[in-house]
């Protein structure tokens, strides 16, 4: 059929984003911008306690307030199925999701939603919240993952029993599940080792920090169709959630995705869509619910805090002989931490003949975690790469050389049971070894300011899944493109580029748009670094169908067989049909102009479920300067290297590498949830939950490697998640290099640095 060679005319170029102008001039409609006639304003009542039994909820006084249209609680939701499904990059049990939408008999974290109010104004809704009477019976909170795992810990869910391959435990526990990966004989492996390093690590719960809060507007038509406008990564995922929690047919629910002001995994699960829908139904008005920043921190889906232990051994020759890993991840209030993905990614880049890994998914009195860019991998990689670094140091080897001696290669069995295919861990580490940054001299300093350099190797597995793209040819030869994927990363542009390349047309010929659940084919969420890859496959398939159908139309015009028509999508004659019967040519536009007379509308449809995909290795080099009097860490230079398969739009890929690194820098140095002893979050704002600012992040250098994933038409691998995985590890290793003290905590705040040095 259509095979493109390396000679690309659209792919690899740097056109402006299709959505750029609307966003620059402030006209793009984001979730909180949706405004409907007669719309009411919704607000949510939240628990001030981290762990309590709800004795009584009485909304009578709130309902009586002038201007209040409706009050909703868990009593307005049907029972939900005790069934777990994949949503975006994580799993969701609908029974738990119901309890997390409106608390049932217990509140399980500070900020847990209890009820919602729709009113004429936001102010009235706020006042009404204060008039809902809730009586609590306080329970002891469990805030620490190891404390939660103790046999005598207070239980969040009295009926929860640890699940594992061995079955279900007899006694209830806060450990929702546990698993073990085993390879070779770890005991024998450690016996062979000349050097063994063992360390424990802790990381704080972190938030994605998207600027746009969660926002949904729900409206019911007279015929019972529910339309929900919302800021999400996956319109169809939200539709499934609303369907399950309301017990309402999928066909009667339309989810319209808005532009998204940052998501990073945090907008796969809905928090305000169902409350908005219930309030809209009860009030007979459209209802908009927008979270405040405080609510976003308290009650959306941050990433797990963790406790981890890593032990590794190696021979004097620098070969790793064994690893033993323990990963304990906070799930928050309901099961579902990304400990499995953390286990898949830790030490994925190394050949480790003997290894054992134990993973635990543990509930604590904090918000239920969600996906956050490479969920679970950043935490475990921080631990794994610190121990790798220390082993190299103990062996007197350059840390990059030590990694290369043990680097994973194709065909090698992975600890999680699979095999590496078409990976490029070696090429990535060699790119680090040869990079000017790694070879630049570093003045270390002997006074107050000490400098160091560190590296980290990172892996994320990526995803494929379902995507749908429709291309319709217009009479002027242009093409309208509709995709079911939500555009969170310039997707309209990167998908249109793949369609244009396949069609042999310029990008200007394609007008791409996001569909909704009524207009476009089923598409999984834009997550798991899947979209440019899998939706790209759908676009290529749709474009190939367009070309095939255009052959038939051209044949009808020429009165020949379609087999006698050829189309070229490459070179100077790209976009031209030729007929072998009469040697005539027609352009794509000339055939398009006659669609009306040759059969009517012409659409190409690409519906795919991509079941195989390639993971992505990346690495970071960090130079830091530590002020040993204040504990402050300043980044002097930072480099991100990654194998991306093929960079469809290199500027966007560089943006992903820089953006991921920036979030990783925040995670490494600044960001972390803080709680008091009763489980009240202390920093639910952007002043005290510290994202890095422009002054804190250096210009991040990027090096893109293009070692293709052979099963994608253009070789694309997922890009967006690997970039966050390595930075905390690289920074921690650089801090050690600067001050000679290993760091066991994230974030590495100035106070923690001073404490580690014994200064305070």
């Amino acid at each position, binding site marked *: 059929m259509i095979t493109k060679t390396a000679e690309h005319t659209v792919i690899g170029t740097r056109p402006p984003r299709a959505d750029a102008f609307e966003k620059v001039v402030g006209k793009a409609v984001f979730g909180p911008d949706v405004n409907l006639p007669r719309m009411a304003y919704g607000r949510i009542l939240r628990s001030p306690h981290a762990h309590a039994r709800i004795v009584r909820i009485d909304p009578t006084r709130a309902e009586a307030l002038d201007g209040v249209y409706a009050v909703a609680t868990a009593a307005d939701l049907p029972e939900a199925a005790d069934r777990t499904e994949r949503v975006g990059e994580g799993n969701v049990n609908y029974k738990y999701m119901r309890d997390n939408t409106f608390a049932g008999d217990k509140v399980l974290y500070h900020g847990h939603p209890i009820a919602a109010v729709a009113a004429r104004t*936001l*102010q009235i809704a*706020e006042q009404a919240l204060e008039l809902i009477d809730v009586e609590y019976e306080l329970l002891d909170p469990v805030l620490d993952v190891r404390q939660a795992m103790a046999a005598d810990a207070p239980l969040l869910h009295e009926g929860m029993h640890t699940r594992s391959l061995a079955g279900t435990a007899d006694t209830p526990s806060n450990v929702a599940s546990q698993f073990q990966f085993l390879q070779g004989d770890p005991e024998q492996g450690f016996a062979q080792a000349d050097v063994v390093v063992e360390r424990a690590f802790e990381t704080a719960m972190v938030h994605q920090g998207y600027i746009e809060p969660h926002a949904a507007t729900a409206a019911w038509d007279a015929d019972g169709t529910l339309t929900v406008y919302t800021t999400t990564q996956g319109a169809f995922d939200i539709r499934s959630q609303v369907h399950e929690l309301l017990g309402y047919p999928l066909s009667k629910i339309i989810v319209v995705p808005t532009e998204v002001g940052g998501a990073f995994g945090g907008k796969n699960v809905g928090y305000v869509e169902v409350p908005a829908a219930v309030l809209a139904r009860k009030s007979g008005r459209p209802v908009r619910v927008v979270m405040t920043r405080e609510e976003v921190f308290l009650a959306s889906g941050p990433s797990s805090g963790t406790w981890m232990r890593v032990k590794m051994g190696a021979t004097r020759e620098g070969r790793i002989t064994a690893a033993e890993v323990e990963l304990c991840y906070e799930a928050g209030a309901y099961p579902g931490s990304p400990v499995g993905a953390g286990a898949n990614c830790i030490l994925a880049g190394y050949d480790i003949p003997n290894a054992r890994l134990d993973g635990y998914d543990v509930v604590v009195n904090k918000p239920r975690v969600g996906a956050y860019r490479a969920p679970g991998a950043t935490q475990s990689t921080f631990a794994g790469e610190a121990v790798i670094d220390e082993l190299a140091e103990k062996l007197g080897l350059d840390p990059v050389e030590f990694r290369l001696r043990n680097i994973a290669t194709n065909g090698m069995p992975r600890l999680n049971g699979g095999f590496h295919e078409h990976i490029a861990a070696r090429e990535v580490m060699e790119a680090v070894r040869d990079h000017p940054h790694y070879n630049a001299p570093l003045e270390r300093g002997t006074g107050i300011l000490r400098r160091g350099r560190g590296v980290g190797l990172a892996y994320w597995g990526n995803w494929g899944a379902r995507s749908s793209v429709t291309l319709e040819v217009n009479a002027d030869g242009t093409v309208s493109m509709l995709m079911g994927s939500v555009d969170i990363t310039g997707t309209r542009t990167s998908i249109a580029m793949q369609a244009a390349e396949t069609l042999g047309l310029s990008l200007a010929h394609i007008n791409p748009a996001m569909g909704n659940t009524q207009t476009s084919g089923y598409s999984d969420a834009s997550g798991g670094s899947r979209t440019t890859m899998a939706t790209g496959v759908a676009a290529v398939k749709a474009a190939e169908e367009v070309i095939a159908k255009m052959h038939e139309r051209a044949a009808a015009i020429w009165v020949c067989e379609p087999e006698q028509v050829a189309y070229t999508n490459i070179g100077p004659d790209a976009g031209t049909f030729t007929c072998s019967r009469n040697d005539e040519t027609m352009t794509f536009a000339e055939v398009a102009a006659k669609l009306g007379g040759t059969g009517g509308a012409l659409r190409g449809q690409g519906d795919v479920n991509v079941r195989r995909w390639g993971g992505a290795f990346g690495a970071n080099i960090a130079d830091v300067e530590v002020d040993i009097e204040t504990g402050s860490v300043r980044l002097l230079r930072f480099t991100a290297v990654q194998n991306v398969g093929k960079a469809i739009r290199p500027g966007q890929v560089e943006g992903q590498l820089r953006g991921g690194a920036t979030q990783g820098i925040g995670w490494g140095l*600044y960001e972390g949830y803080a709680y008091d002893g009763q489980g009240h979050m202390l920093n639910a704002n952007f002043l005290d939950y510290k994202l890095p*600012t422009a*002054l804190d992040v250096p210009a991040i250098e990027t090096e893109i490697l293009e070692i293709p994933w052979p099963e994608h038409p253009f070789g694309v691998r997922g890009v967006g998640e690997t970039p966050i995985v390595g930075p905390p590890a690289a920074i921690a290793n650089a801090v050690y290099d600067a001050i000679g003290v290993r760091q066991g905590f994230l974030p590495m705040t*100035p106070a923690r640095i001073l404490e580690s040095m014994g200064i*305070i």
Partner: protein
Amino acid sequence: MNFSYGYRAPDTIAEAVRLLQEGGSGARPLAGGTDLLVQLRHGIRQADLLVDLKRIPELSAVRYDPADGLTLGAAVPCADVADHPDIRAHYPALVDGAGIIGGSAIRQRATVGGNLCNASPSGDAIPPLIVLGAEAEIAGPNGSCRVPVSSFCVGPGLHLLDQGEMLVALHLPIPSPRSGSCYLRFTPRGEMDIAVVGAAAWLQLDESLSYIEDARIALSAVAPVPLVAETAATWLIGRPADSESFAQAGRLAQETARPIGDVRGTLPQRLHLVGVMTRRALQGALRRAKGETIDG
């Protein structure tokens, strides 16, 4: 939570005083609003009338007189303060403080007077005003008066203004010869942050530029109010202007500080940083007293 307020923007101090007096406890002066509006939104402060002071000419004026010093209107934005050539030349610690409040956009609105009246223990403009010997000019129903800025704040978020009184201007004396000042704060981030500990220092050297003739030190975020480190400053008088003296002053400042531990900093961290930041602020003040330029 109340989202609706009355708004008045008088042209004269007398009219503003009258509005504030008549408005009672629900009337609040408004300058840049970068603290007040956020506090109202979060229910931390209440108001039913905002009296905007920015249209009163005296409150938006900056006047430097070599014989009389600086008169800084209470509603002058931090950005204008930090950019003002006379302030940059003569009151560098104030430039240090006004130049790091919030971020660049916030400083176009936020005022030094507002920073003082917000009376936060971590207010970045307050320790510089204290070490520069500033006085606050207050207008009220009974006329006007001046009080030292060092006694203006009486608790977290609390100051000594009575109902109907307002801050009109800040008066800073002419700089002594061979003097220099500096304010430094410690924050995890480079900007858009709040002091974990801040230290302002002012030094006057003898004619040899080797000994300290006079000194003042003030600290932020280590007590319920911006704190004068009197013992440390007094100890410095007559001492050599060198790192040993400054280190000892830092230790004495630590004894004065009464920090708490909270989400922004642990107690041991704050105590430790008082020593470090005091020493570094003194070093900065010394360099400026000697006529050297340091990064603001």
